[in-house]
């Protein structure tokens, strides 16, 4: 009984302790300059660049060695007065457009940019055309004759009797 009462408290303490130690796991690359303005720019540029080893991460997110090297390269270049755009261009020159997380707009990427919109338009038109033709089919159908109505009634009635018995 006593143990049970203590448990929630112990759990809380454990969780709190975890919360304290968690940030300790996140190992950041050694910073060249402790300049917050520069670091902000490094972050901005590196979140636009793809890590080529772990391809679905930016180099800002990745802890792969190459990503850390590239981040250091970005920092050095920005530190020596290169503009953000020039750094991105430097990387594109070396690793190709693939290195950019936001693909550039050019003829080879038109399908990438406009493909989803195109698919929506195609999908909506197919839906629209199908719905219209279906409505037309229903409206165009010949009205029921007295004989049909009787048949339906008989069938429904027979069904009701069937469930009762």
């Amino acid at each position: 009984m006593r143990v049970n009462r203590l448990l929630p408290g112990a759990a809380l303490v454990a969780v709190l302790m975890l919360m304290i130690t968690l940030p300790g796991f996140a190992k950041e690359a050694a910073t060249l300059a402790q300049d917050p303005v520069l670091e902000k720019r490094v972050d901005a540029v590196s979140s636009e660049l793809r890590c080529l080893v772990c391809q679905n991460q930016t180099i800002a997110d990745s802890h792969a060695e190459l990503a850390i090297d590239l981040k250091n390269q970005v920092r050095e270049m920005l530190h020596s007065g290169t503009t953000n755009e020039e750094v991105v261009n430097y990387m594109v020159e070396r690793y190709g457009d693939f290195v950019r997380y936001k693909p550039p707009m050019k003829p080879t990427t038109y399908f990438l940019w406009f493909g989803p919109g195109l698919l929506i338009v195609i999908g909506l038109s197919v839906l629209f055309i199908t719905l219209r033709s279906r409505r037309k089919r229903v409206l165009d159908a010949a009205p029921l004759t007295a004989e049909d109505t009787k048949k339906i009634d008989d069938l429904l009635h027979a069904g009701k009797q069937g469930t009762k018995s």
Partner: protein
Amino acid sequence: MMRFIVPLVLFVVLGGFLYVGLHLDPRVVPSPFINNPAPDFKLSQLQDFQATFSPKDNLGKVWMLNVWASWCVACRQEHPLLVQMSKRGDLAIYGLNYKDRPDDAKQWLTQFGNPYVFSLADFDGHVGIDYGVYGVPETFVIDKQGVIRHKVIGPVTPTILSECLTPLTQLLGKDESTESPEMKKVMKKCA
């Protein structure tokens, strides 16, 4: 009729995309360096720190720059092939020792053989970044004008060597133009 044709066409298109996707390797990123001048640098030689090398020194020669490291497992895989190639002596291979420790690198060469004219010490990896290296081993083929003509990402295999690298470097040695049918045939094999 249409209710069969539409799903069939959709299936074939989707299947086609997936089939092509099976053979694509997302790790192979086409290098923007092909047909561009090899970036310049100046590095010390691994075995002799006093001696330096710059790609300019090799103008007029067809040569290969092979990026390797002692910590790189795939390098070990291609290494016997490079050693064999260097023994034939028809092509100069230069090493770029990438982010390695000098002692480890030298030890590695002693143990597995040294196919390189010499290796360059790129311990901080700056030249590697300049060459767009993202996975070791990588091999660049550089022509007499100092232009990168081809890049192999990952280990060189016997097939790549016999169908691409050997004929390509032979043609480059003969100053074959990019437009010649033979060159086009080889480049197709390389792709």
